[in-house]
């Protein structure tokens, strides 16, 4: 029987302390312990990217990260992209260019796009496709997502 661990982590800039089983998924810690339900679960096997978050500045599938490995880590979720009511330029571009349709993939898509623009402020189509290749969308056909990322990049890019 696994004992719970005291997990401290920083999520969207705020410190949190929760008691969770060591093998609990980061996805469930975020959604159920911290009530940050913007991060979605799709496939549960690292294929779809709906659960994408930034862990210590890198995109990860939060369904594949055990709690024990995020002790002291910094996490950014979809709830951390906007500054109050002010959307990040990527979020705004997704609105303007209809990059979101049903919206289920959008949180993960936006985290991957944020990471991409941080690494590569003026991405080509191929670089966007590579950066978002781990995020599946079943609505938009991706063209509007590409448009959105291009627009945000042209708008001066990055995250916040």
């Amino acid at each position: 029987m696994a004992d719970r661990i005291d997990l401290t982590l920083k999520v969207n800039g705020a410190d949190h302390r929760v008691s969770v089983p060591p093998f609990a998924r980061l996805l469930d810690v975020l959604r159920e312990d911290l009530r940050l339900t913007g991060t979605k679960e799709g496939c549960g096997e690292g294929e779809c990217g709906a659960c994408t978050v930034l862990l210590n500045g890198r995109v990860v599938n939060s369904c594949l990260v055990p709690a024990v490995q995020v002790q002291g880590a910094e996490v950014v979720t979809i709830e951390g992209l906007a500054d109050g009511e002010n959307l990040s330029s990527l979020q705004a571009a997704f609105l303007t260019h209809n990059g979101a349709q049903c919206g289920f993939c959008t949180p993960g898509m936006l985290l991957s796009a944020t990471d991409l623009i941080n690494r590569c402020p003026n991405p080509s189509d191929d670089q966007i496709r590579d950066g978002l290749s781990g995020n599946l969308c079943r609505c938009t056909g991706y063209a509007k997502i590409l448009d959105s990322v291009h627009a945000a990049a042209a708008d001066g890019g990055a995250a916040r």
Partner: protein
Amino acid sequence: MRGYLPDFDVRVPASLGEALALLAQAPGTLTPLAGGTDLMVVYNAGRLKPTRFLDLSRIDELRGIREAAGAMTFGALSTFTDLRECAAVHRHFPNLVKSARATGALAIQNRGTLGGNIANASPAADTPPSLLAYGAEVELLSVRGSRRVAYDRFHLGYKVMDLAPDELVAAIHVPLPTGRGFHYFRKVGTRQAQAISKVCLAAWARVEGGVVADLRIGLGSVAPAPIRARHAEAVLLGQALATLPIEAAQAALLEDISPIGDIRATARYRSVVTRNVLGHMLRELATL
């Protein structure tokens, strides 16, 4: 349904010494856990039996890529992203970069490790063919000491390895290629990202005076474990680039592989495509 969480305990050693001591205490009862990109998938699918993990993620001794004495050493915790971002890996081992890029997508590459890709022992993993092509050695550590195993002798069958229950895959040593080199990597999957290989072939050759002086071909997804194409290699060694016996090598390749049919491809598809990829590789080699 996922596994039952209280069934999954995790020990978190702070040092390599502590990790090896824990492995030695009760050999075979702890499962090393690195990036989790394979184990967590099995857990999420509810197919992971109750497990005690040994979390390696805090062991800095298992990190880092270093070059010394004509070889490059990869700590077992080197991630696919580490491989992609290391200029020396691009320079010496382009196939390894392609393997890393072909594994999952970025979120997987940020977490998955070279040591995990080896020790998970999937026949469909994408770095093993490149490691086989480059003549890698695996360094295994235990409280009893250290030993090195040629990687082409490490996998003994489906998920069977030359790895004692108290041993840890600690590092991978890859000799720096010398001379006029040829590097080839080809993965065949359903799409470019996120696909599990139907066939994967990596090759490295050294050419001297227009002749194949050295050649290793690594294959994935066509046998119970990653394998060398030794029969095909034997047909090609010493041959002139101008008159490579491509069809004879393709025929010999059938002695090397034993593909199965599964949800990703039929055995016949794998057999035909592996031969075709070898043919493509050899036609490229011929133009070197």
